[in-house]
């Protein structure tokens, strides 16, 4: 069952096109995981996160600055190359400048019938963030209703919330298994699992996920676990990189990425006022660093993950030029190292410099193991 996630990761466009054909429904491409998918699911719209393809490209130069992060350029390139030509809608929830540029450029150059900019508050720590977002969600719900020409009822919202919450619960259950001394899945498998959950219809994904969790009970991998590592930082769906790291004699057992645990860490807590409950969930989720101020809540959160999953080292990954993440690196490094967790900092580009990275990763593992050489 677990192989299904890789298939979905590789064939996300084919999946979305088939879904559309089968259901006659609309597909919404979204940037950034602050987009409240509950409302889209309530309207029977399929939310599909826009991701890059990790290939060198030359189509975004006229549209996006060279010193904007490789991820936002890679995303825009997918649009310009027509790989998301099946989208009926496009949206973003306000997040960092770079990904907003990808969104606005896409909207300008690749016409879609519906597009929406959701002003997700950046200062999530403000007491006004939840009421503000609730108001914005009301406007967004109305816009979706006008677009789909169908009312979204409370029952629809409950369905959307439950689809999201169920998938989140299952993802957390799967991640729990990685706490075992010899985790029953690799970090690569976990990445396929988490990233595919952002592009595949939630019920489909949850069905396979439920089966997978059963299979994982008592599954033994034919490889030694080696050093237990955590990865954290900017958007990261780079399976080649993860595969290389695990090939050097380690297992990635945890993460703090928007393509990983941040996506499903907390649920919507139903409280009667559905939009308020959704607003609370997005305001209170483990934050993206662009929203984590003035108190840096990410740092203790990351340390807790590192401890709970018992890692010996953490790889701090940053998309090149990703300022919000770079700003956090010194404090994350300091906090982890003062708690006995060694760190390795690496900068991601569209393609990974495997040779250079491999030397660093191997040297890092030698540093963690070490004693056998003396």
């Amino acid at each position, binding site marked *: 069952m677990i192989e299904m996630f890789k298939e979905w990761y590789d064939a996300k466009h084919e999946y979305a096109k088939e879904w559309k054909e089968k259901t006659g429904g609309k597909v919404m491409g979204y940037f950034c995981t602050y987009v409240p998918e509950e409302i889209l699911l309530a309207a029977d719209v399929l939310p599909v996160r826009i991701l890059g393809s990790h290939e060198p490209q030359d189509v975004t130069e006229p549209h996006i600055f060279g010193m904007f992060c490789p991820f936002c350029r890679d995303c825009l390139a997918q649009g310009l190359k027509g790989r998301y030509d099946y989208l009926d809608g496009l949206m973003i929830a306000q997040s960092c400048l770079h990904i907003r540029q990808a969104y606005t450029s896409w909207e300008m150059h690749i016409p879609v019938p519906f597009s929406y900019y959701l002003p997700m508050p950046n200062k999530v720590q403000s007491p006004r963030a939840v009421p503000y977002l609730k108001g914005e969600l009301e406007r967004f719900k109305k816009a979706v209703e006008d677009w789909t020409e169908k009312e979204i009822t409370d029952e629809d919202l409950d369905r959307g919330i439950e689809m999201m919450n169920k998938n989140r619960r299952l993802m957390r259950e799967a991640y729990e298994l990685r706490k075992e001394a010899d985790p029953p899945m690799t970090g690569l498998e976990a990445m396929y699992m988490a990233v595919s959950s952002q592009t595949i219809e939630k019920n489909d994904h949850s069905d396979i996920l439920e089966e997978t969790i059963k299979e994982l009970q008592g599954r033994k991998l034919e490889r030694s676990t080696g050093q237990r590592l955590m990865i954290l930082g900017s958007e990261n769906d780079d399976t080649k990189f993860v595969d290389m790291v695990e090939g050097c004699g380690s297992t990635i057992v945890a993460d703090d990425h928007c393509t990983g645990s941040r996506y499903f860490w907390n649920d919507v807590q139903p409280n009667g006022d559905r939009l308020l409950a959704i607003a609370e969930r997005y305001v209170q989720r483990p934050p993206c660093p662009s929203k984590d101020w003035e108190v840096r809540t990410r740092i203790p959160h990351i340390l807790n993950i590192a401890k709970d999953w018992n890692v010996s080292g953490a790889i701090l990954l940053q998309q090149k030029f990703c300022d919000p993440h770079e700003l956090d690196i010194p404090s994350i490094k300091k906090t982890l190292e003062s708690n006995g967790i060694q760190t390795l900092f690496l900068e991601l580009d569209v393609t990974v410099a495997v040779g250079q990275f491999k030397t660093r990763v*191997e040297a890092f593992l030698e540093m963690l193991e070490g004693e056998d050489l003396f």
Partner: protein
Amino acid sequence: MATTDSEYWRWKEYNWKDPEMDWNDAEFITAGVDVGSVSSQAVIILDGKLYAYSNMRTGSSSPDSAKNAMNWALEDTGLEIEKIQYVVGTGYGRVNVPFADRAITEIACHGRGANYMYGPSVRTVLDMGGQDCKAIRTDERGKVTAFLMNDKCAAGTGRGMEVFADLLGIHIEKVGEESFKVEKEPPPVSSTCVVFAKSEATGLLREGWPKNKVLAAYCSAMAHRVVTLLERLGVEKEFAITGGIAKNIGVVKRIEKELGITALDVKLDTQIAGALGGALFAKALWEKQQKAG
């Protein structure tokens, strides 16, 4: 392998053995082979003591470079490769050393090698290699405790210096000395890319700058670049430099000046640090393997 007048970049390739030592008396014979991006070395140690080595240019094939370096180190010793109990491969070509028992990164090997060459008081090692440089912190055994490696550019590296030796027509082994023959230290050239630095230098020559002044500007750019790497890591004394650039006083003195710390001096060839570290790891690994039965 004679130097011709037009090959200013060509540094001396050679082999060496300790005439006082005899491998027949040794209990442990181990070796390290460092196949770097520019140069390759093979080092053979007897019971943990340096016995023989070679230092030569890396060719287009890593396995051939490893074999050539090893054969040259073995030359005139009477020792055969089969008698070497354990070989560690290191450097860029570490996984392509056909006769290696294990591959270990050049970062770990330089830390260990510097510990042997400079003594256990070394805490910070700067390895200035052919196409990258690494700042390494070590403990009293030469075990790496932290490291940083430069990214995406060869401006602070040996190959960059070779390009400059060629451009200016000054032999690579004289570059350091020559760079001090200036009235006043010029501002550094741009330090992010060898090709850009070279274009800038061409412009300066055209403006009438003497060669030595251009060289001084390049040495200082290179020093500045590695000092920023060192400062990111944090420098703790004692401080040592390994790799080919450690032989270039034009760069070394400028690094020392900028850091305010003097680098340790050594009689051994700084280019063999990686292979030497590999040979020392090979001994530890062989002994463990023997004990484990």
